[in-house]
């Protein structure tokens, strides 16, 4: 009983780490694990929370990196827009 719980939790932990590699959010992770591994979101969420408690530093960095990346993506989008706009303008002229 206890052993299977422990190994189950370990598996969920492993799966969550995979999601972290994909830079997913907690919600995305819950959804993915449910869809692909049939794991109840509440279980994913609980294990995620506990992981976060044990690895506070990592998760703080993770969150800020995600934010950073979001703003970087936004910046990139804007730059791309600018570039495409300017190229449109160039072709017009």
């Amino acid at each position, binding site marked *: *009983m206890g052993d299977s719980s422990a*190994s189950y939790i370990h598996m969920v932990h492993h799966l969550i780490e995979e999601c972290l590699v994909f830079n997913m959010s907690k919600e995305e992770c819950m959804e993915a694990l449910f869809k*692909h591994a049939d794991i109840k979101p509440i279980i994913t969420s609980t294990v995620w929370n506990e992981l976060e408690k044990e*690895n506070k530093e990592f998760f703080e960095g993770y969150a800020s*990196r995600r*934010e950073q990346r979001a703003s970087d993506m936004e910046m990139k989008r804007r730059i*791309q827009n600018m570039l495409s706009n300017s190229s449109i303008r160039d072709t017009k002229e």
Partner: protein
Amino acid sequence: MLAVSPLRNTGNDGKQGEKENNFSISPEEFPDFGEGNLLESIDFDDLFVGINDGDVLPDLEMDQEILAGDFPVSGGEESEMNNSFMSEKAEVDSSRSQEGEDKVLGLGCVNSTSNKGDEIMSGSDEAETKLKSLPNKEAYKTRKSSAAQAKNNNQGKRKVKVDWTPDLHRRFVQAVEQLGVDKAVPSRILEIMGIDCLTRHNIASHLQKYRSHRKHLLAREAEAAGWSQKRQMYGGGGGGKRDISPWLAPTMGFPPITPMHHQFRPLHVWGHPSMDQSLMHMWPKYLAHSPPPPPPPPTTWAHPPPPDPSFWHHHQRVSNGLTPGTPYFQHPLPLTRFPAPPVTGIPPPHAMYKVDHGIPATVTEQSGPHPLVDFHPSKESIDAAIGDVLLKPWLPLPLGLKPPSIDSVMGELQRHGIPEIPPSLA
């Protein structure tokens, strides 16, 4: 350049004569040289003769009280002041202040080590005391930064050298992000960060560097994005994707992935907590500066590989015949992403990350998976990764985080009405 002259006392008279010192050092002012106090007998001032050039500590800020302290430091080009430990403090002080702040710290520290007398230490503050254990030039920089940080920042004279640790930088980035990169004002950043040891000036210069770095980063990415967009226009969907890789090819001399897997088993030591901490700490700074996209796993096994770092590409082409489950997509990756994987013989991530910036923007529309940069990893790659974990539970954890407490997980689940796991109901 500098010659340490051990056992100076033996040569003192002669030296003094040569240097035309207008003082004399009586032997009793020196500690016992003969009996093993060689350290004290070394004239550390000699080490700093060349420092008068001012090239060693350009931006060192001196505490007023240190300047006022009794440091019988030699300041002249000649080493004639070398001997002026006790007797000529006044001269030294004036000469020292003439020379500026640069050398005093180090010199003061040195003199405190030279143990020529208690007076040396009389004017020094704790910072100096701390530093006296580092008598040589190599420790100069360490002393400089530690002393600089120990000192009060409210000098206003010069900026204190701040050590931008990954953690500090992360807070800085957070503060900047909060304010908005363009709107981030040093004084506000300082407020948000709430760290006493930083001055507005520190923040301002760091902000400048950060902004220029970001611009450089984004410009490069945009340029690469524009470039790869063109490529895709010409080459069509799949062809265009592939064409991108050759551009990356020269940078990659990657070993075959499959053998790497075998190497990863022993590397599971990365699961060790202390390792993890240091590696994790590397992330924020590293990623904050240049978000490195790790090579993504193949979207499907039969599918042509995504146009990401070429080593992926090579191996994708070579190993299309691999059966699913071969662990060459996700598990090796995270380990390779760490900035210091010498064990695996993988070239430092910098090489491929720098090259790879532009890809994700366009890849997003095409094939998707670019975990750390692309916010929308493809379903297939996630499914593949998850499937692999389910099939092979023995594989090492990609990040090696500290596992959660089983008891608290179970307790929490029971609170939510789940008595046991795996749940008997699907």
